[in-house]
């Protein structure tokens, strides 16, 4: 049996950062659905927010984040995020990150949405990519054991404590029990639960759903970020850096319509507001072909676009056939990020002993109802590092948890019973159909604008889809690189999460941050200034409310 004191699940920024910090004191391994360098952290373009100069202040970063969160962020966690930021950026600098430099040789910073200062440290528009690869290099240096293309199947819980995992090696088509003292989830988000998303094909929320099935509390799942600028049609991300560097949003009349929605911040208002503005323009007939608006960089000049936004340019030319240095890009909002996730404290500790979480899979909660651009990359490294430290500390002082033969055998039995009836009717296409139906419901009924009866209808339809899913025969197990089997499992994860997202959105009868109810268009602090907690119950998720940690900033009206 494989044993590691600390098992990190996920090889993106949060996972690798956790692995590097934990490896200083404990035996660590990283189990990752992809080779780590292929994690979706690499697609992040804009930058890492951190206060690096004297004109800016940690205080200001905290306030911008609290306000951006529409006062749902936990202020103790936000203080940690913003205070640890500068130190982590300098640590990454020493490890070899090629940050873009200011003329004086310091780390350059650019403005991103909802921030009062140019605060994002970046490497052109490859910010996530370069840091991911630098951390991977350091993981090689530290000889950290990596299990690439292994899938987490189940968290093994013994007497209420996580004692290991059941994992599946895609290449060998074999399951393995891995014992551990601490499991750190860093599996990212569930973007593929939505038909229109910027996220990679791998982003199916596996870790979030598996934690939920094991009994961990999820929080604020109804808060889903829709990125304002994705290429029309393909929904490939066009970084907020494009607006940070001075890009304009224009409607079909050529007007910079953000003047009507956020007269001060204009294009650099927070994402929830900009996405709503774009859809409003389109809905009221001011979009191109009734479907998209323009992101215009043509006034910035070719040199700046080439130097600061080379990836944006390449993506737009390839996938939209438009060179943004000479013509505006057609864009529409699409799902981008999950504010919700596995509820954790500021050291990554979840409600299940032995289970930590960091990064997008977690809800710590620094983003509250709406995340600011540049804060998620920062979150991955700040809270990844903290979760790694806490994991090593726990591994140092705790004995190996008991993992009984019964628990391991029950888990293996439950895996193999999926395949046991042997009838193998070819039904894979139903997996595709069920998944397509679910993801279209999410985009059309649980999107930027929500309304009670559509949400109720979505919840009902999702229940039906779950029933259909349960009747499917899973694809045969025994072949290497069985992506049909993975699709089957992922569809199950997505259905669980959709149910929680839609249910939470129906329950929350107010509008806050990215959750906007046409039938309840106002924020309601009296009844709803609280986190939505979701636990797995007999017949689907059971919801309750939890307090928001407010330290310095009392809720006020949020204008930009």
């Amino acid at each position, binding site marked *: 049996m494989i044993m590691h004191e600390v098992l990190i699940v996920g090889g993106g920024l949060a996972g690798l950062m956790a692995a590097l910090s934990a490896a200083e004191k404990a035996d660590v391994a990283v189990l990752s659905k*992809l*080779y780590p*360098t*292929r*994690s*979706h952290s*690499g*697609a992040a373009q804009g930058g890492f927010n951190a206060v690096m100069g004297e004109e800016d202040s940690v205080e200001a970063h905290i306030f911008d984040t609290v306000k951006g969160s529409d006062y749902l962020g936990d202020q103790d966690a936000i203080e940690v995020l913003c205070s640890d930021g500068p130190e982590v950026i*300098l640590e990454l*600098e*020493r*490890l*070899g990150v*090629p*940050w*873009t*430099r*200011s*003329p*004086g*040789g*310091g780390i*350059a910073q650019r403005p991103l949405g909802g921030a009062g200062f140019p605060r994002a440290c970046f*490497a*052109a528009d*490859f910010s996530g*990519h*370069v840091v991911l*690869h*630098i951390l991977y*290099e*350091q993981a*090689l*240096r530290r000889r950290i054991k990596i299990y*690439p293309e292994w899938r987490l199947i189940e968290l093994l819980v013994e007497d209420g404590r996580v004692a290991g995992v059941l994992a599946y090696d895609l*290449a060998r088509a074999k399951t393995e029990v891995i014992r551990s003292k601490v499991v750190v989830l860093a599996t990212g988000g569930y973007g593929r639960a939505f038909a229109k998303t910027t996220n*990679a*094909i791998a982003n199916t929320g596996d870790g979030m759903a598996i934690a939920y099935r094991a009994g961990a509390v999820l929080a604020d799942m109804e808060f889903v970020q829709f990125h304002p600028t994705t290429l029309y049609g*393909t929904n*490939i*991300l066009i970084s907020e850096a494009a607006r940070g560097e001075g890009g304009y949003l224009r409607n079909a009349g050529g007007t910079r319509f953000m003047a009507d929605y956020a007269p001060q911040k204009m294009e650099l208002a927070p994402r929830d507001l900009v996405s709503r503005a774009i859809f409003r323009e389109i809905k009221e007939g001011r979009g191109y072909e009734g479907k998209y608006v323009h992101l215009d960089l043509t006034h910035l000049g070719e040199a700046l676009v080439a*130097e600061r936004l080379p*990836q944006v340019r*390449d*993506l737009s030319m*390839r*996938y939209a*056939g438009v060179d943004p240095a000479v013509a505006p890009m057609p864009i529409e909002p699409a799902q981008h990020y999950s504010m919700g996730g596995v509820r954790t404290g500021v050291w990554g500790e979840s409600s299940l002993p032995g289970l930590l979480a960091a990064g997008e899979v977690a809800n710590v909660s620094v983003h509250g109802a709406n995340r600011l651009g540049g804060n998620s990359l920062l979150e991955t490294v700040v809270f990844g590092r903290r979760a790694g430290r806490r994991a090593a500390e726990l591994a140092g002082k705790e004995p190996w948890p008991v993992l009984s033969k019964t628990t391991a055998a029950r888990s293996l039995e439950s895996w193999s019973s999926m395949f046991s009836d042997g009838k193998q009717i070819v039904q*894979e*296409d139903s*997996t*595709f159909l069920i998944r397509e139906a679910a993801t279209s419901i999410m985009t059309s009924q649980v999107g930027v604008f929500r309304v009670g009866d559509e949400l109720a209808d979505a919840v009902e339809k999702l229940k039906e889809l779950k029933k259909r899913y349960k009747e499917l025969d899973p*694809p045969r197990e025994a*072949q*290497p*690189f*069985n*992506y*049909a089997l993975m*699709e089957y499992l992922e569809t199950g994860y997505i259905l669980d999460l959709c149910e929680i997202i839609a249910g939470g959105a129906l329950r929350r009868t107010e509008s806050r941050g990215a959750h906007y109810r046409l039938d309840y268009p106002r924020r309601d602090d009296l009844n709803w200034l609280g986190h939505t907690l979701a636990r797995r119950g007999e017949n689907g998720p059971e919801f309750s409310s939890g307090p928001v940690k407010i330290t310095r900033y009392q809720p006020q009206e949020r204008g930009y």
Partner: protein
Amino acid sequence: MKVVLNISRFNPEVDQQRYFQEFSVSVEGHHTVLDAMLQAWRQEPGLSFRRSCRSTICGSCAVSINGTPGLACQTLIRDAAGADGRVILEPLPHFRQLKDLVVDLEPFFESLKAVLPWVVTREDYSGRMAPEVSRQLEVPATCILCGVCDAAMDAPGEAAPAALVKGLRLTLDPRDALGEHRLALMKVPPDILKLFIKNLPDRCPKGIAVQGIKL
């Protein structure tokens, strides 16, 4: 448009040797080869190929397209399908086929280690770097480790092409304590290294043009 994908199939559990299977799919010219492959997968869910970001940043979908290694998500159908509307897809050359289009990446990732591909930070590093130096680092740092260069070029020496890209970047990094020993670690004669740097942009999906190396 109708396109026929001719895909190399091989399942080690049942097949003695590889064979080709044709898939007829319907796609737009501006769609990618990956889009077409995903359609073929719906017809035959047992078909295996790696994919993830679908935007040329993760490097998963590197395959041989009509005999040339490249990224399926970067290649548009209208560029890949000839007048006969056919596209031939095979696993990357120089790599071992494990199943269908999936190749063994272990030797590839293992090969990186030969050049000690990490910054060994100098004690006296000031924390400042001229913008033009960081720009030089940024270009090879866009390498996505897709394996296309290893598939498209013969290894110029003991170290594989992708490992050389890492080695060259570290040679340029003023933070790195190994400095000129980096060139020795790569174990490639200077004239061959020059030729490698010259040929790389055309073979690399990210067009990496390494500049500033003094040989």
